[in-house]
């Protein structure tokens, strides 16, 4: 499944991120293949807000459809 299908509150693991340029920018914020993150919030057909501890980041809808994830909790 993709990040766009995630529901607020779910814990997820990032499986894959397309495009090297995005991977390189995302990893600085803590989003990388294998990362365990929580979906803090989501705007329907809009950005997903991910959290790990106190760090939060927003990912646009288009990109969230390309990021493969699995729900772990």
């Amino acid at each position, binding site marked *: 499944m993709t990040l766009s299908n995630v529901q607020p509150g779910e814990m997820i693991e990032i499986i894959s991120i397309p495009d*090297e340029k*995005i*991977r*390189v*920018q*995302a*990893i*600085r*914020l*803590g989003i*990388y293949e294998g990362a365990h993150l929580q979906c*803090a*919030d989501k*705007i329907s*057909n*809009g*950005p997903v*807000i991910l959290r*790990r*501890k*106190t*760090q*939060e*980041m*927003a*990912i*646009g*809808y*288009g*990109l*969230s459809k390309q990021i493969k994830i699995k729900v772990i909790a």
Partner: protein
Amino acid sequence: MSHCHSSTQNNLDFMNESQKTIILAGNPNVGKSVFFNAFTGLYVDVSNFPGTTVDISYGKYKNYTVIDTPGVYGVSSFNDEERVARDVILEGDIIINVVDAVHLERDLFLTQQLIDMGKPIIIALNMMDDVKRNGLNIDINQLSNLLGVPIIPTIAPKKIGFDPLIDSLDQARIGHPLKDLKEPIEQLSSTLKNPAEALLILEEDQHVRERNQAENQPGYREQIYQWRRKRVNEIVDKVVSEISQGASFKTKLSRWMLNPITGFPILFVVLGFMYYFLGVFFAQTIVDFTEGVVMGQYYQNFILQLLSPAFQEGSFWYKLFIGEFGLLTMVPIYILGLLLPLVIGFYLLLSLLEDSGYLPRIATLVDKGLMKLGLNGRAIIPIILGFGCVTMATITTRILGSKRERFIATMLLGLAIPCSAQLGVITGMMGSLGIGYFFIYFITIFFVFGIVGALLNRFLPGKSTDLLIDIPPLRLPKIKNVFSKMYTKSVMFLKEATPLFIIGAIGITLLEHFHILTWIQNAAAPLTETLLKLPKESATSFIMGIIRRDFGAAGLFDLANQGLLNPAQTLVSLVVITLFVPCIAAILVIFKERSWKESIAIWVGSFVISFAVGGLLAQILI
């Protein structure tokens, strides 16, 4: 300077070669500037970094030169800020890395990269007061051991930890680099003039590779970033423990700001407050005093009495200096009386928005809407900045991810975003018309903005990029910081606007004196009188608007004051001047930032659209 032969040397001439340099580095909004001010006191210079829009502050502390760098998430060349930070850091002798203690996972990524560069570092672990508040505990000793550099806990606004930090400067140390990097860096750095550049060559930084003629070196950027991320997470897991968990008010407020159901009402309340503050309090109460009384009466009477005897009334020199568009009458009255208070008001608000951490939340909230215009939420930053100054905002479109987005944003900025000075004049004039007219004005501009954006999105080739941003914690802005930002920006406004106003005043006086103005007014009559149903004098304001849009708006302000415009005409003229071609400065920047073809499309496009929309409104309303 230890490495004075670098190719960046001519960019950094303020980095005196005989003096050691202390560089402040850190992520955005971690409080670097507070440290900078503590070191340098009042004697600070700000200079533009050549070839960028980035300003660098530098000052002196004892025998050191202290340099502040733009906040970045890492050192590389994704954008101007990073390139500037990179070049300043590469040349520094001691790095003070300011770290947000609450966001170690994000901030230590930069810290570890600085360590990998092999620079002597000392860490100011800032915002320690927020650590407890967020239910966290940090083992500082262990963190210091793992990184291999000294750490001083600090609370910048209260100046806690500053003395220990200053006393420990000579203890700055080269930390523990990633172990897999040691060997390749050692091999490479021995061949370089500046060994710190070895890491960036391995990380495929194009600029650093080129200046070392190292294009053919193998690159490991992704690999290195993964090692670094893994290391940082290991460290954070070891040193940070959560002692309690509880949703504070800030967390709840942050959720409300992001959720559309509560977020949009909050946004509208904030915008409403901004409108009242800027459009009512500043544009009316304050401007009535500064423009109406101080400049319009005392100053004008003074200058007229002083200089009238020197010139023959009606002569060219009389008009040039103290006439209706005079250099000593109109120019200072418009700039100091009318526009400066508005600019000050706008930048006060903008600094509050920036420092509170609300901007990235607005970006997330409006992302979905802006996607329909071929933009993503980040574009809200140049759009909001555009309400301050379209010229600055046009340069800021560089932060957008693709050429396509930069074109759309530039077009929309040039077309439908009034700058603060112009907006102030407009809201001031609207204030006297009543809420109904304001509503029509707002809806018109909003629709033009939306329709043009949607059409561009539909027909421009290519693909726009997606939102990917850090959402920093909400913070109460520090008043001192807000005022110092406001001051810098207002001074910039004066520097930028004054020469253009002088040129404009001379131009208009020449046109008027040689009766070309009347000729233009008559020639433009089909447009102004027939299409827009405005008095022909309004052509003068539109010509002034080509020079600066606030200049044009100020001209309309005069016309309305003289009773030449009825309410519907005021509305039409304000819609036209808002949508009108961007001012000369903005046009110059557009030509610099975009291609010739794109720039001409923007220029002609905004001209046609402004008259078409104004004409349509006039035919309906007047």
